[in-house]
């Protein structure tokens, strides 16, 4: 349970960090909090030639909230939860983060690290995809922004090129009328979700569903956003929540692994999905 030897690199600037990634040509891992990478290194599931520790790049943990919220690459989950303006701008993140790992891992684990790692059951990638947020990537070739829905490709596989560094996450600000809910089922609290549901819903004054995003984590190999367009304009009540979740459960192609069978995951999409949707639809939430 000790890592294989690696070169340790601690760049002082983003430019130095991306030059290192280019130099090692895909054989370097970016080290932020290390809450996922550390375990993989210890178990030698990862054996990179080098680690590029980005934690001491000045200002790389900054948060800005203007027309959209932007969280820097080394912002920890704990500091995100403590950031009042960020939590107000992106309430769904505030609902999801308490489900992420534990107090002790949130103290060190980062939002962007979780996104770059792309575990299909992780909360932060799910919230970013549900809200249609973006990932900012930098390399010597320049900076680009990619929608989260295109960034996540497969289990622990993203559209990031080997020489690219995730420099920030971009979160759309929640509208005043948008309601949110989040819940997941895991074997124990803090474990990886078997199924996680994230909902952002807008219900108009007459009680009809105006906009909806239903995100499902842990179900397929990447965070999934269900197609719910057919339900817009319907009365947002418990029956509609059940119908939307049942339709989503029909369409998913769930993972089948040691944690849960595909059938169980499908059943959770139906039942947990209905509960979380109903919670978001409630007028007092």
């Amino acid at each position, binding site marked *: 349970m000790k890592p294989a030897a690696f*070169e340790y690199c601690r760049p002082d600037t983003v430019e130095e960090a991306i030059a290192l990634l280019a130099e090692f040509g895909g054989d370097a891992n970016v080290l932020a909090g290390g809450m996922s990478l550390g375990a993989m290194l210890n178990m030698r599931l990862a054996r990179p030639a080098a680690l590029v520790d980005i934690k001491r790049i000045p200002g790389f943990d900054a948060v800005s909230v203007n027309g959209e919220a932007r969280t820097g690459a080394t912002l920890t989950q704990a500091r995100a939860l403590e950031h009042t303006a960020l939590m107000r701008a992106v309430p769904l993140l505030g609902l999801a983060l308490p489900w992420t790992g534990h*107090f*002790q891992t949130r103290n060190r684990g980062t939002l962007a690290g979780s996104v770059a790692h792309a575990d299909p059951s992780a909360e932060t990638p799910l919230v970013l995809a549900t809200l249609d947020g973006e990932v900012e990537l930098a390399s010597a070739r320049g900076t680009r922004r990619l929608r989260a829905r295109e960034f996540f490709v497969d289990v622990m596989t993203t559209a990031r090129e080997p020489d690219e560094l995730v420099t920030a996450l971009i979160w759309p600000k929640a509208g005043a009328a948008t309601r949110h809910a989040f819940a997941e089922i895991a074997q124990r609290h803090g474990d990886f979700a078997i199924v996680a549901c994230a909902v952002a819903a807008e219900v108009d004054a007459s009680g009809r569903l105006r906009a909806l995003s239903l995100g499902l984590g842990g179900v397929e190999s990447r965070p999934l956003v269900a197609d719910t367009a057919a339900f817009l304009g319907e009365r947002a009540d418990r029956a509609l929540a059940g119908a939307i979740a049942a339709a989503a459960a029909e369409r998913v192609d769930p993972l089948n692994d040691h944690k849960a069978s595909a059938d169980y995951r499908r059943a959770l999409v139906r039942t947990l999905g209905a509960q979380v949707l109903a919670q978001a639809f409630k007028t007092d939430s």
Partner: protein
Amino acid sequence: MQRIKPDARVTVTLEVDGRTRRGTAEPRTLLSDFIRHELGLYGTHVGCEHGVCGACTVMVDGRAVRSCVQFAVECDGAALRTVEGLAENGELNILQRAFRRHHALQCGFCTAGILMSTTDFLARCPDPTEAEVRDMLSGHLCRCTGYQTIVAAILDAAAELRATTKPSKGERP
């Protein structure tokens, strides 16, 4: 920029429980191994060594974290707090006394980590509910106690800390 070759040993300097301590580490030396083997502080225990069990939890720059999933070189210059730093003038502190009073340990392997998490937790959340304590404890595995006595000790310590440290806000237990 700092670069350390895979087989190089470098000096790592930390402030540990208020004292400057130095040792040498390779890039791959885990912070937990550095604390035990280089600094000789065996109070920090190593359980699963992949960030799950919480036994190795210490405070780095004021936050409780797993020391087995970070590297000593990452922490160069950081301020550490370990279980060895909890006692005051050779006397158990309030939290440690509450653990003893409530029999909140049997074999004691998980205890150092839980004490360090709780030290951070109570500084941020001085008046926790039982549910909040249990949520914080979800990051630790204890196979002896069933957690009941640990929860009781932490709630008791929190009450005592509130009673004794009322005027000074933000002080750590």
